[in-house]
């Protein structure tokens, strides 16, 4: 461009040469030169000592008709003229705004000044040169930026594909090519988005047909911003974002987020594990506290019961003895001679005394049965937690309770029904405690059923049914009697400590409350009651198989 310019300037101005100097700091460097006059330097310091230099310093055109005659004015310039052989010289500064960026100079070897037209022409060329130099500079800068951008583009972690307004691939970076393993030829052919998509789909990139269909639909409107994640066939997870660009095209950005996903997954798993561990720890702690509480309560009750039992034994023993002694006393009295009135009085007194002793015996026995009950509910310790066969435990409890009841009341009888699930298997538990619960519920059932029998008479057959059922992670045990049932207004209170419906002396009111604590608090299970007044009462116990799989708490807590 500058060469053409100097050539034209030289020719049109009838000069012997034309040269263009570009400013570089304090120097002028030869940028282009046309014509037979030699220039024996490539670079020269800017000063007023030579014509071109002065045009730059003074920011104006300098026209010297005969340089040889101006040796004092242009010492360096006249020296140059002597060396190179020129006489007439005209230099125009190249002005970009207020700044001089170079100089255009034309010369002749004879003394023949340039005409006004020629001067105007050179000045025009100078203006063009400014534009050309500026353009060249801008182009250079642009190329530099472009190269920088390209380097950045290629080296960014994400894969980028730019599509033009017709949805054809316009640009892509190395990462995209590597990440999706795209052949050079495919990219070079500038495929459209759907062509690229079809190529990837054919290669099995999308795995699921659903995802493929969904992505296929998203091809239709590329003006939409879009973001999705998918797992590639090699297991890597990519995040794909599509952003429209203002000129009508769009950019696809592929980011490999496998590591991030894994990290997120690991954090989530760790958090879940920690939460589970904490929950299990809390549950275990609660159970432990509960077990200790029960054990302590047991020891306490046992201690008190024994302390009461000893003096109570004396009360009972002495009172029954005294009944015998009264009988003997009356026997002896018969052999004594007294008047009838006195005899009647003594006899009446003795009768009253015997009745009183009878009451002491009766109430003593009542107190004794309460103490026995307390001892039954508070056998020391809970034993150890271990897997126990649930059906065997139910069977054993039924037998124990039945024979216990027969021993207490010789006339006792009840129909026992068993519906035991053969797959019930074992449950992790404190077997001694659970047996206590079963015994309690079965004894209650016996009591309720026989009581109804006493009221209803011969037509009624007292029945108790024990059912077990395998629920997978839990086991269900049902104890059902056909007694009088529980009135709705009492149903809420039955698990409260010291609540009892039995007549004074027949119950402590602790049985169901302890059952509840054992099942719910100690074993993490639940105990519910289903009842219909005048028909039946059924206790439903659900026990989790293991301590670490607690049920949703139910019943009362």
């Amino acid at each position: 461009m500058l060469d053409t310019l100097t050539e034209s300037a030289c020719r049109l101005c009838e000069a012997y040469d034309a040269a263009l100097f570009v400013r570089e700091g304090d120097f002028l460097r030869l940028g282009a030169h046309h014509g037979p006059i030699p220039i024996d330097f490539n670079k020269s310091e800017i000063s007023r000592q030579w014509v071109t230099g002065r045009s730059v310093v003074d920011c104006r055109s300098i026209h010297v008709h005969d340089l040889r005659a101006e040796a004092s004015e242009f010492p360096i310039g006249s020296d140059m003229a002597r060396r190179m052989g020129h006489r007439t010289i005209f230099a125009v500064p190249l002005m970009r705004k207020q700044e001089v960026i170079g100089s255009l100079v034309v010369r002749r070897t004879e003394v023949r000044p340039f005409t006004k037209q020629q001067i105007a022409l050179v000045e025009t060329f100078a203006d063009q040169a400014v534009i050309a130099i500026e353009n060249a500079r801008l182009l250079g800068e642009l190329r530099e930026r472009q190269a920088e951008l390209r380097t950045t583009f290629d080296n960014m972690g994400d894969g980028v594909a730019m599509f033009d307004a017709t949805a054809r691939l316009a640009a892509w970076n190395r990462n995209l090519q590597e990440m999706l393993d795209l052949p050079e030829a495919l990219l070079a052919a500038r495929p459209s988005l759907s062509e690229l998509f079809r190529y990837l789909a054919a290669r099995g990139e999308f795995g699921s047909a659903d995802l493929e269909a969904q992505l296929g639909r998203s091809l239709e409107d590329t003006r939409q911003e879009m973001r999705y994640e998918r797992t590639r066939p090699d297991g890597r997870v990519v995040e794909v974002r599509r952003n429209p660009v203002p000129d009508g095209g769009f950019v696809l950005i592929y980011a490999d987020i496998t590591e991030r996903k894994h990290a997120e997954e690991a954090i989530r798993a760790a958090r879940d594990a920690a939460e589970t561990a904490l929950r299990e720890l809390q549950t275990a702690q609660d159970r432990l506290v509960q077990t200790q509480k029960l054990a302590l309560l047991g020891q306490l009750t046992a201690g008190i019961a024994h302390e009461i039992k000893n003096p109570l034994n004396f009360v009972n023993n002495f009172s029954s003895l005294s009944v015998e002694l009264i009988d003997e006393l009356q026997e002896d009295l018969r052999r004594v001679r007294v008047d009838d009135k006195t005899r009647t009085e003594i006899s009446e007194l003795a009768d009253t005394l015997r009745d009183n002793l009878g009451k002491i015996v009766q109430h003593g026995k009542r107190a004794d049965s309460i103490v026995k009950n307390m001892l039954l509910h508070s056998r020391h310790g809970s034993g150890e937690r271990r897997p126990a066969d649930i059906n065997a435990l139910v069977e054993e409890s039924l037998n124990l309770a039945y024979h216990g009841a027969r021993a207490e009341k010789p006339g006792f009888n009840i129909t026992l029904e068993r519906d035991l699930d053969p797959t019930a298997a074992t449950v992790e538990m404190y077997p001694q405690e659970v047996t206590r619960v079963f015994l309690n519920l079965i004894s209650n059932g016996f009591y309720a059923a026989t009581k109804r029998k006493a009221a209803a008479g011969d037509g009624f057959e007292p029945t108790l049914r024990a059912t077990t059922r395998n629920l997978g992670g839990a086991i269900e045990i049902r104890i059902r009697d056909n007694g009088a049932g529980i009135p709705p207004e009492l149903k809420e209170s039955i698990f409260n400590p010291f609540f009892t419906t039995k007549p004074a002396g027949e119950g402590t009111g602790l049985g169901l409350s302890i059952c509840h604590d054992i099942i719910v608090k100690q074993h993490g299970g639940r105990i519910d009651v289903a009842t219909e007044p005048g028909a039946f009462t059924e206790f439903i116990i659900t026990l989790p198989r293991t301590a670490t799989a607690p049920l949703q708490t139910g019943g009362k807590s």
Partner: protein
Amino acid sequence: MSVYILVVDDEPDVEALFRQHFRRDLRAGRFLMEFAPSAHVALQRAIEIRDATLILILSDINMPGMSGLEMLPIVRSARPDVPVIMITAYGDAETKRKALENGATNLLTKPIDFVALRQEIDARLEQAA
């Protein structure tokens, strides 16, 4: 020749209870009853009554000082000819096992079943006769 039954219990009212219960036997002179309020006193008596007239020892377990179970092996080695029946409020299997292991003939629980006790005494009396 009169025979003795030694009853060991820290409760003083036990004497009254036993004497009233067996009043007819005592009156009829079938046997005599001696009462010791502690294991130490009981051991002394068992050794003092050196002859064969001591036919049975009935002993409580829970007593201050030496317990009935501690006394048991000592009295058994001093008087191997005299059977010992333990009487306790704690009728659990563990206590029973310990008592029998240490040489007790039987273990009865409180409240005392006097019918069963009378049978035991009758059996001793028959053997002694």
